[in-house]
């Protein structure tokens, strides 16, 4: 039976051997904080993957035109007209489950009077639903609207980085020249986070000038000899439908394009699965490292408990003489190691969160403070206390009291 006096005894013991207790604690603190750190970083990576997928809309299938080298174009130009607006209608007619659609074409910025370097700046000729479907948030002014498209209004929305560089936050209402026409800036986008290695990097929008598609065709001559569009996006019911849609679209579109695969279909579900499986391998590595450090911590506790017992052998003899049974001696030492592991675990959880926060901050990784991680590491540390405390405790209980009393 476990009594209050067990805890009091342990406290006496810790008070009389502060250094030894601190060392045992340290091992557990390091072990548990590495578990918490590893899990937080792993969990953070997981969430980052999901966030990057969400950045382009999780329930959207994108069809992206492949870059075809010029010499190949002459070869296939008679078979395929490249990605074009007719594809949208044809796909919606044949593939079930495709919802709202949008499309865009992007080209490098040519002649312009933007007061900043225009290297790498893109003109995105967009059908206005692009804002909604690609999750482009407007922080100043407004997004492009169907009327802009319908009446070929000369209005643009600027990407966040471009607006900041060119107009230091005062882009609204400015007139800019693109090609041979003047446009009014009606909106500025919120910054998009990079999707890492996504095939369709949302960061592109940060350095872009978004123009209604019809206006761009008319006024800036963004047309291409071969393809009409760079991207078509369809909304589907959910993330889980994207891969099914991809499989259905593929053959239909290939047939439409005369058997030429001059496009690439991006299904968020597929990307997510790929990234998850790489992450899963990494997680196994992280967790193994954490488990090893926890075991090392446990061995430290065991070591110190054994040293403890050697030193306190005459105490064990005396306690047996005044009436402690083997079971009570065992419980006493077991409780001592569980307390060390419990307290070490508590400090370790806090420490682990601090460390993972610092690592996340220092290396610009996302970390997630998972509740589960805390509960699991806490439980683990108590389990370590029991597992690694058992053997020393059993040894203590089997000490012969007569011999023990002959020591000191």
């Amino acid at each position, binding site marked *: 039976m476990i009594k209050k006096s067990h805890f009091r005894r342990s406290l006496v013991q810790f008070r009389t051997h502060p250094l030894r207790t601190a060392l045992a604690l340290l091992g557990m603190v390091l072990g548990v904080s590495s578990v918490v750190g590893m899990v937080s970083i792993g969990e953070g990576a997981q969430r980052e993957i999901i966030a990057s997928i969400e950045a382009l809309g999780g329930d959207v299938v994108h069809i992206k035109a492949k870059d075809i080298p010029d010499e190949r174009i002459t070869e296939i130009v008679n078979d395929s007209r490249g990605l074009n607006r007719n594809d949208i209608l044809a796909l919606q007619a044949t593939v079930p489950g495709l919802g709202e659609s949008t499309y865009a074409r992007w080209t490098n910025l040519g002649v312009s009077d933007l007061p900043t370097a225009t290297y790498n700046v893109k003109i995105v000729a967009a059908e206005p639903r692009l804002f909604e479907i690609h999750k482009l948030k407007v922080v100043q002014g407004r997004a492009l609207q169907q009327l802009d498209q319908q009446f070929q209004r000369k209005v643009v929305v600027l990407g966040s980085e471009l607006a900041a560089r060119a107009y230091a936050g005062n882009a609204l209402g400015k007139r800019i020249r693109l090609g041979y026409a003047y446009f009014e800036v009606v909106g500025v986008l919120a910054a998009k986070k990079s999707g890492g290695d996504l095939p369709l990097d949302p960061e592109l929008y940060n350095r872009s000038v978004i123009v209604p598609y019809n206006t761009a065709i008319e006024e800036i001559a963004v047309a291409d000899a071969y393809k009409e569009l760079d991207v078509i996006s369809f909304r589907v019911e959910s993330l889980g439908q994207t891969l099914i849609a991809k499989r259905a679209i593929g053959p239909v579109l290939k047939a439409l394009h005369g058997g030429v695969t001059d496009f690439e279909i991006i299904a968020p579900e597929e990307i997510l699965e790929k990234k998850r499986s790489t992450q899963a391998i990494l997680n196994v590595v992280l967790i193994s490292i954490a488990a090893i450090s926890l075991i090392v911590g446990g061995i430290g506790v065991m070591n110190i408990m054994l040293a403890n017992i050697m030193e306190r052998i005459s105490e064990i003899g005396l306690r047996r003489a005044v009436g*402690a049974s083997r079971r009570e001696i065992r419980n006493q030492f077991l409780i001592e190691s569980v307390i060390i592991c419990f307290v070490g675990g508590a400090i370790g959880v806090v420490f682990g969160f601090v460390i993972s926060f610092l690592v996340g901050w220092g290396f610009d990784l996302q970390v997630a403070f998972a509740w589960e991680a805390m509960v699991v590491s806490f439980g683990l540390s108590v389990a370590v206390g029991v597992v690694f405390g058992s053997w020393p405790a059993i040894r203590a209980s089997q000490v012969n009291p007569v011999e023990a009393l002959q020591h000191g």
Partner: protein
Amino acid sequence: MTAHIALTGITKTYRRGADEVPVLNGVDLEIQRGERVAIMGRSGSGKSTLLNILGCLDEPSSGGYLLDGVDVAHLPDDDLSKVRNRTFGFVFQAFHLLKGMTIVENVELPMEYSNVSEKDQRHRALELLELVGLGHRVSHRPSELSGGERQRVAIARALANRPSILLADEPTGALDTRAQVAILELLTQIHASLGTTMIIVTHDPKVAEELGDRTIRISDGRVET
């Protein structure tokens, strides 16, 4: 009336590798309630071994042990521990106080293993320290006490659960003459007031004379007659 303690044909043999070392070869002994017995004998004759068997701290190799008519020679550990806790009080030559605790906590120790509430433990311990003349030093550490004072604490501890038998192995062996006298007086006084049965191992005839109603001698592993 059955004897408080009755040993019949107790033997104890230690095994040292392949060798067998016989220490006790058939001890017969009866002790009545309230009696004071001094055990004497050469060094190595087996006095401590006998005392440990009497106190249920060690098991005999063979023989019978009746405590108030109950066979306690081969009980399970839990039961033996209970018997030690309730019936016996041990006093050692080397005191065996726990140095991390105050002396009042040391006296409470046997009560931790019986069902005494914490409040009653403290009350009883203070009462006992008063009895042995250390009521003014209850929160001191054993290291701050003289040898004689430490042995008083140990005696207070031995009495904590109101044992019917006090076992003392050379209780004055580590003390100077003046402290010895004081301890002997204390034990005599305890016997007079509580009527505790006392079994005292000593090599000092004066101690045996003073404390023993009866003295037994051990030689060749037997009680000399």
